[in-house]
């Protein structure tokens, strides 16, 4: 068993139960892979070796006694550095939190801890999840394992790259406007954005509170079904989580997709998009048809307005959420000035990076007296139009199939100087975010040797159907089994 790091979560689970290897060996395999390649990929901000081995040994003890039923027991996971982890540095890739050690766990982290997971460390991101390339990290950019000259996508780029490079068995990310789906596509792995409210966000640093969601990356959709079961559900500490039944995802995905109605929205096949991307999506549609699904042409007419609405709503909520970083309660505090105002101004000037400052200022402007109706209220009305498009479409279809991004992973530095160009990368992921839908990225092939994913969008709280379509697709394709050459 020299290639343990290549196993999927479910394979690792089976091997642990059959005593083919131990959790300590799985953990060693991950750290060995990290030590070999992470100086090139740069996916981790903080490694958690000491605690990870303690967790692994505790898991091995339990496995020996046969006293835990959790499939996550003893399996190593990488966590985006925006989830608070008790006694483990949590930075959000921001200099303002460079030395912040939270005294508590995010609810999802607590759930994984109780399930016996092994925490390998904390992964890189665009500062406070603002960005789509992980270049906005306050520390260093992450590189795409498929081509180190290229971005892994973002904002959850560290978690996606670490998984693609077999440095962990699954990882956690957050998705506000595409931050799980886009990096999953760029890195050739599967990733799930849950419906708004499906998974508790308690202890995950807020960016755009009316849109933020969290979710897992997996080597397979089958793995994601297992993980989601442990993350989903109502949390008294997060009042945006409704009491909606959590499905038995691992059972649901086994059902075939005969008769499933899949919509193909014409607005997502635009001029200027990469031909390889378009072809992979259309080939996937054909594959779904062969599997017995019915593919139907649909229209989501307000698609082209979604990005503009998002870049009012997101910065507005950002400007409010970032107000908590004041140099008083926690984080960086610059106290060389003459008064309280200087503490605010200096701490924030030195702690925040360029993109965070940009969004704070756009939001401050959009919410300032006299502009609220023209910007924020207008954007919320357009959000309604986008949401209604989907509601109409779902009267006709069960799932919507689209590309994830207009093109595959681009080169580091290519778009960083032009924020607007960067924002337009999110054109296919943002509309579903505004509507609070769930979305799954599944690898669907390559264009010029770079991975391309498809996006499957489901109704709110209907994760089971997109997971089912994704898993059934992976039963008849092997794109998800392809690995980068590091």
């Amino acid at each position: 068993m020299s290639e343990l790091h290549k196993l999927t979560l479910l394979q690792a689970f089976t091997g642990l139960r059959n005593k083919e290897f131990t959790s300590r060996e799985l953990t060693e395999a991950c750290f060995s892979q990290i030590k070999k390649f992470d100086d090139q990929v740069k996916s981790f901000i903080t490694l958690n070796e000491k605690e990870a081995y303690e967790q692994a040994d505790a898991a091995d003890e339990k496995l020996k006694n046969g006293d835990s039923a959790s499939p996550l027991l003893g399996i190593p996971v990488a966590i985006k550095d925006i989830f608070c982890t008790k006694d483990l540095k949590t930075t959000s890739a921001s200099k303002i939190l460079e030395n912040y050690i939270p005294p508590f766990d995010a609810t999802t982290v607590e759930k994984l801890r109780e399930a016996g997971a092994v925490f390998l460390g904390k992964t890189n991101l665009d500062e406070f999840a603002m960005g789509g390339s992980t270049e906005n990290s306050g520390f260093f950019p992450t590189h795409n394992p498929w081509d180190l000259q290229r971005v892994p996508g973002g904002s959850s780029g560290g978690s996606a790259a670490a998984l693609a490079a077999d440095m962990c068995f699954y990882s956690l990310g957050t998705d506000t406007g595409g931050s799980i789906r886009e990096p999953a596509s760029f890195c050739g792995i599967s990733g799930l954005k849950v419906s708004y409210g499906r998974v508790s966000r308690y202890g995950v640093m807020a960016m755009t509170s009316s849109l933020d969601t969290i979710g897992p990356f997996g080597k397979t959709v089958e793995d994601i079904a297992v993980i989601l079961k442990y993350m989903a559900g109502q949390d008294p500490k997060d009042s945006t989580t409704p009491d909606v039944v959590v499905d038995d995802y691992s059972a649901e995905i086994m059902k075939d997709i005969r008769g499933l109605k899949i919509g193909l929205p014409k607005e997502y096949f635009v001029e200027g998009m990469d031909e390889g991307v378009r072809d992979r999506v259309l080939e996937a549609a054909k594959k779904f048809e062969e599997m017995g699904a019915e593919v139907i042409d649909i229209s989501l007419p307000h698609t082209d307005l979604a990005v503009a609405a998002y870049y009012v709503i997101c910065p507005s909520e950002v400007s409010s959420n970032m107000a908590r970083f004041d140099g008083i309660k926690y984080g960086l505090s610059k106290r060389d000035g003459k008064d309280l105002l200087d503490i605010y101004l200096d701490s924030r000037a030195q702690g925040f990076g360029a993109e965070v400052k940009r969004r704070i200022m756009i939001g401050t402007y959009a919410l300032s007296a006299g502009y609220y109706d023209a910007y924020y209220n207008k954007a919320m009305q357009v959000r309604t139009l986008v949401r209604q498009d989907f509601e109409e479409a779902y009267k006709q279809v069960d799932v919507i199939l689209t590309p994830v991004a207009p093109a595959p992973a681009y080169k580091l530095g290519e778009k960083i100087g032009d924020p607007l160009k960067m924002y337009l990368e999110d054109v296919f992921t943002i509309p579903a975010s505004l509507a609070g839908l769930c979305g799954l990225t599944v690898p669907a092939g390559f264009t010029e040797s770079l991975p391309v994913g498809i996006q499957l969008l489901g109704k709110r709280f209907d994760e089971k159907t997109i997971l089912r379509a994704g898993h059934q697709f992976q039963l008849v394709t092997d794109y998800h089994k392809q690995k980068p050459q590091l």
Partner: protein
Amino acid sequence: MKLSHKEVEHIATLARLRLTEEEKEKYSGQLSGILDYVETLSAVDTTDVEPTSQVTGLTNIARADQVIESGISEELVACAPKSADGYVVVPKIFENK
């Protein structure tokens, strides 16, 4: 629309950000570009369209009014750059007369 340095400065002050001269220059261009783009929304007819501020459909989520000990109040206060006796220390903002 082009934001002037003065406008950028005003926004930055509202947002409690101190900007360098280079930043003011850079942001006045970039922010103007972004605002021009989101300006496209003004062409959309939204008469009688209700705004969507959230999608949960939930309202007024309240729990029983009971004290629940976090058990970590000392640790939370200790996260502050300055703390003493279980309190966060802040600079004086009133002058003695």
